[in-house]
């Protein structure tokens, strides 16, 4: 059964949309990631206009983050103060991101910037994750390896406006999470992702937060950043497709449950290794698309 998506203005088979939601939901449950970095490129690949894919995916991530954060809140794994600072930065960054997005769309370079952002950030993150998980797997086979410090201090922690974050056991400058939040916010708005795959490593390696609160806090702030993107895109570009988001959501919710169960079957470092390979695969695919001569050098877009 085909369904006409009112904002994307294309017709898609309903099974494809729900299946896509389910598949990406499964992977996001399995790896504990939002899945936006897979969903947005896949939607574009299926013919959804990039602007609609990015804005609609933001709307869907609001839902998956709400459902994910509740479990973390029950376990007390959310640092609300840190999340609050991050989300202030995130709201500023994503607002700038939507403006940048609108500008790039008008000059016809949005596809390029979306793809380049994916190649660059997925490439870096995927490579680092792969390295890390290979090391972790090696380490489990070499008993007696030295333990790392809780966290290391560097010049970044010495910036002014110091603040105490009890839940994260940190006393650092508020400018640091504000800056990280803003940077990830810009990317979230342009790439149609929650940004967890950049936020989580940044929280661990740059802020030095304990890993137990990282995912919950990241999800908490993603809700607000993606809600902000949803609102601004609705107002500025009218590209949020409510019907598409709802159907993706339906599939993703169910898929995520199976993913979460499946994740119990694999070890943490194996999961991270697999996720790294998947991230790199998306990166390589998009990289090839940019590097290989397209069949048709011309493309058209109907302007409204």
């Amino acid at each position, binding site marked *: 059964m085909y369904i006409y998506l009112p904002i994307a203005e294309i017709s898609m088979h309903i099974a494809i949309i729900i299946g896509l939601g389910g598949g990406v939901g499964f992977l996001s449950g399995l790896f504990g990631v939002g899945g936006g970095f897979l969903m947005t490129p896949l939607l574009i690949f299926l013919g959804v206009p990039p602007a609609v894919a990015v804005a609609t995916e933001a709307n869907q991530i609001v839902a998956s983050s709400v459902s994910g954060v509740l479990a973390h809140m029950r376990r007390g794994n959310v640092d609300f103060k840190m999340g609050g600072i991050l989300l202030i930065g995130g709201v500023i960054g994503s607002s700038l991101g939507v403006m940048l997005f609108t500008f790039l769309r008008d000059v016809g370079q949005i596809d390029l910037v979306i793809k380049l952002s994916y190649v660059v950030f997925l490439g870096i993150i995927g490579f680092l994750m792969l390295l890390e998980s290979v090391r972790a797997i090696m380490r489990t086979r070499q008993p007696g390896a030295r333990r790392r410090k809780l966290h290391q201090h560097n010049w970044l922690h010495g910036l002014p406006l110091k603040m105490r974050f009890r839940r994260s056991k940190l006393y650092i400058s508020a400018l640091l999470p504000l800056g990280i939040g803003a940077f990830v916010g810009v990317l979230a708005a342009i790439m149609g992702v929650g940004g967890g795959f950049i936020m989580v490593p940044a929280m661990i390696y740059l802020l030095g937060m304990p890993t137990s609160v990282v995912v919950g806090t990241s999800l908490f702030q993603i809700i607000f950043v993606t809600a902000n993107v949803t609102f601004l895109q609705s107002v500025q570009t*009218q590209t949020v497709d409510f019907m598409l988001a709802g159907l993706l959501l339906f599939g993703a919710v169910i898929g995520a449950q199976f993913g979460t169960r499946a994740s119990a079957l694999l070890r943490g470092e194996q999961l991270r290794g697999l996720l790294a390979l998947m991230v790199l695969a998306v990166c390589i695919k998009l990289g090839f698309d940019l590097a290989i001569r397209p069949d048709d050098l011309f493309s058209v877009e109907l302007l409204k």
Partner: protein
Amino acid sequence: MIHAHRFILGLILLIGMTGFATANSGRIVADLSKSNVAITSGFHGTDLLLFGAVDGNIGDDILVVVSGPPTDVAQRRKANRAGIWINVETNIWQQIPSLYTVLATNPIEKIASPEVLAELGIGTQNIGLKIVPETPIPGQAPPVAADFIAALQANMASIDLWSDETGKVKLTENALFRAEVSLPANIVSGTYDVRVLQFRDGVAISEDRTNLFIKKGGLSAGIYNFAHDYSALYGIFAILFAVASGWLAAAVFRRK
């Protein structure tokens, strides 16, 4: 009423013709099986039947042109810069038909000469398409439509919006004709212009016009209008819906 009226007119013509099967000056009447199409949630393109009667002789040809509401189209050209393919040039085609389908009883070049087609404004090269640079390249002359038209035709054909002779017109006894008009799923809403011409010996001897109205309808139109007319409210509603369904999902699966 109009349908019935036209149909009766067609029948009268048909009866009239059977009586005088001699040389005639030609006359054509056409109508569509449906003149209003609603783009609803289940819309996946549609086929319409164009039918009609013609006062024809052996060897006459029927040519149908369906033209969608004019719209601006941005055409971009990619080139390799530093190893990657990026859009380097954008030109805007101004007010070109969002859909352009030519259907005929024979290949168009056999029906009439290029000069005749140009005079009648049939074919995308003959409808006075205008192109203007969006990103003028310094030191380069402004684009000439003729240089870009082949690429435009290929692009528009690849998204099913422009086509030549995709379906043929069937002519029975030089009197009745029918043709299937395919409308793809990505059509634009608005008023479509349908021209039906009768050709004899390379000359158009009669013509009829009709309109087709395409509108968004049902839930699909509701969402579209909500998003455009009350965009802030739409955004808030989309967020609340997402929060509620995320909450619901967590609650449902927690219990299990």
